[in-house]
Structure formats: C-alpha cells, structure tokens
C-alpha cells in the first residue's frame, strides 16, 4: 500500500494557508535535506528544476519531526488552527 493510500484513510480538515513555512533561501544551500527523510507523511519534496522545497502541508500529521530535524532550524512551524488539521480516531 502506498503512502498516498495510507494518508487517504486519515481525516483531514486542511487549511488554505500553510502552517509549515521553511525559509526557502536556506533550503537552497541545505545539503542533507533531512526534512525529506524524517517526515512520516512525506510532506517535503525537493524540486530540483525549480530549486525549491515543495511543502504539501495538507498531508501533515502534526508530529513536529521536521521542526527538530531541520539542521538550519529554518522551518517556521505552528499548529494548524483549532478547527483544522488532522483528526485521529484510533490513536
């Protein structure tokens, strides 16, 4: 089962604006791009052609791993609004 299929089982109420805001300038010089490994929802994807970090924030599970793992500590990270984000029923 692909990650997309797994994520499709989760109840989300996505916001229109991202609650995860990496400093794209710092990402350009980031070598390891640890955020692309640690995230359990694969929210971060480095787009080589555009020299840009894609942030699929609507898939975020709100764990906080990226915030801690980012070596440049450059992700402005906050919880989604009270009515938004993920709702787990079987946690």
């Amino acid at each position: 089962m692909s990650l997309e299929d797994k994520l499709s089982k989760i109840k989300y109420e996505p916001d229109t604006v991202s609650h995860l805001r990496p400093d794209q300038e710092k990402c350009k010089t980031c070598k390891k791009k640890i955020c692309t490994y640690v995230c359990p929802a694969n929210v971060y994807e480095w787009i080589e052609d555009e020299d840009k970090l894609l942030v699929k924030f609507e898939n975020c599970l709100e764990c906080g791993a990226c915030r801690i793992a980012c070596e440049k500590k450059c992700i402005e990270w906050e919880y989604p609004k009270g009515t938004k984000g993920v709702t787990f029923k079987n946690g």
Partner: protein
Amino acid sequence: MSENKTEVIVVGAGPAGIACAVKIARSGHKVILIERGKFSGSKNIFGGAIYAQPTREIFPDFEKTAPLERKNVEHKYAILGEYDGTVVSYTNKHELPVSYTVLRGKFDRWMAEEAKKEGVILVEETVVRELIVKDEAVVGVKTELEDYYADIVVLADGVNSLLAKQIGLREDLETKDVAVSVKEVFKLPKEKINDRFHLNDDEGCIYEIFGGSMLGMLGLGFIYTNKESVSIGLGVTLDEFEKHKTKPYELLDKLKQHPVIAPLIKDGELLEYSAHLIPEGGYKKIPTIVGAGVMVVGDAAMLVNNFHWEGTNLAMISGKLAGETAVVALAKGDFSENSLDRYRIELEKSFVIKDLKTYRNLMDEIHLRKESFLKYYLERINMFFEMFISVNGVPKRKLFWDFIKNFIKNRSIKELFKDFFSVVKLLWSILIK
C-alpha cells in the same frame, strides 16, 4: 478582563492535562482545560496501553465505564533478524490487569467527559498561541480568538511544547532526544485476533519488537491487540533516517513483511495511519518544570520512561501532583515560583523522577553501543537457534565451536570488552546509583 479570568488554565487535554484539571476541580476551584483538537484525544497517538493503577489514582472506577479495548495478559519480546526471529513470551492472567489497550480517540475523550462532570470547563478546537507574561510571571494565554487570564497556567501541551520553549523553560530538542513513531491500525474480526494471538474473550497481547527492519538503529517496534483491530508501529530516533536513507513508513512497511510479523496482521483492513514524536532524552533532558505562575507536566516535561514503555502513567501522575500543588497555592494565594516549586519536590519524591534517574545513562549508552545491542547480539541470538535446530550431518560439537569462533571473529575482543563494560556500567547505574 474579569470575564476572562479564572483560577487555573491547563493547556492540553491529554492524560497529564486532564489529571491535573480534575484534581483542581475536585477541590472546588475554577479550571479551564484548553484542547487544540476537535475533541480530546483527536491529536494523540501512542502504542497502545494505559496502566491500571495510575489511572485508578485519577479515576478510581474507570474500569466500569471507560472505553477499554482489552486487558493485557501476554507480553511477547520478538528479537528479529533479517529473515528469522526468536520470541520470548510471558503470560499472566491475573485478576487485576496491569494494563489495558485503548484507542486514544475514545479513551482521552472519555476522560475529558468525566472531567467535565466534575466541573472542569473544557474548551476544544482552540490553539493557545502564546503565553501572556507580566513582570516575569505567566498570567494567561493568548488563543486565536481571545486572551484568557489565570493565577496559574499548566502546560500539558505535549512533546513539542512550543509554550515551554516560548518562556525559556526548555531548549530546542536535538534529533537524538526524540523518536518518530508511526503506527497503523488494522481491522480484524475478534475471533481471528484471538486465534492468532492465542487469547480468550477480551484478553490482550503486547509485542515489543527488536531488530527486523530496524537492525542497528535506535528503534523499537510494537503490536497491541484491540477489541477488533490490531495496532502495529515503531519508533525510531530522529537521527537514524537520514543516516540510513530511509523514511519512517518504509521501515514500518518492511517490518510488516517480516515472516514473524506478517501472519499476525494478514488480511487486515487499514483503518488509520498516524504519527507522533516520543520524548527519548530521559532524565538529562527534563526541562525546567516550574516558573512563576506556571508548571509543566507530561510529555511537555519529557516524562517518558522508554525502557519500560511508560508515558501516560508518568503524565497522569505528574498532572495529579501539579494539580495538588495548584490547590495548595490557591489556598495560600501565592503563585510564585517558590510556591509552585512544591510540584517539582513532590515529583522528585515520586517514582516518576526516581525511575527516570535510574535510567539516566541508558539512552546515551545504547546510542553508543547500538551496533552491538540492537544488531550484533540480536542477530547472534537468532543464529544460535538456527544452529541449534539444524540437522545437516555436521557433528554438534563442530556446530557449537563454529558458532563460538564466529561470535568472536566477527567482533573484536576490544569491542566485546566495551560491550561488557557498558552493561556493567548500566547495571551499576540502574541497581546501585
């Protein structure tokens, strides 16, 4: 301001926050419990089991009405190699169970409902963005909509506790101090679960899993049985993923395919995938837990005993002790750091800090020796059994000696000594001081 002023605000309606709020409400004081999720438990994840004794300390009759899944009677320790495994099992069908599996979406919600019945004011779907600090004391919280003021604010906002960080009670965490845990819950008929795990009725089984897809990594896996579902997951320290060029869900997928594990969840329908961080830093990473007008409890205070898989119990007890301290402080009308320091003192007297202190060296030591303890020896245990059961015309004495030679050859004497001293050091710090 008077409308928006109460005696205590507790941020976060998980086990720590609820335990704290209940204690305060029972003493007749006003307490507001603020939860960012749609309902309590909706943002909470854990492996699977709550402990009966500490839960009884907060809700003496919880066994009668709480949504419990199964009472755990069987603990299995699965030591997995790449393709094989050794499973050790301990069974005890005691009258009074030590733990029950629960689903947090139901259980935390139940606890919050009970808290409401006892007078706690629960505010859901509300994120506290900031603490309000005046004259170096915490005097309230800023939510998205309004500011609320209180004599005491208790931070039960979980492992990420952005609020404790905001007021400088805690440093940013390092990658080695937290594990990412991913979990999948599979729907299976009750009879199938009981057959596969050798259980009767509402008995439950817990697997602790070492090795397998996590060989050589600082990580552990778990399986818990629920009434009509099975939870499987793993937690791996954050710094392993980049190092091993892998992702959390890939490790779990691989674990699910392991021949020892796969039959247990076969044909299950995936109900939910989830993830959460687990505090792993232990005693050395406990932040400052008391300040003027503020106390920190549960995961926010990094209170997790990962060696024994204890977290919710430490959360409940820390919440309870903070709640009791709040009541004493309210009676005195003194919310200074000095007054609230009673919480720290009580926590230090309790098993919570004592246990974390006992294991203070464990994570550092395992971090250093994980190639041995979480790979080499796990593999050797399985290799031993592979050798022991083999019937291949080779005389047994030769088999034994080959195993012993291989054991020493693949690990230098120096490393073996280091492992040995590491174990001695750990045992000393756990048993003596």
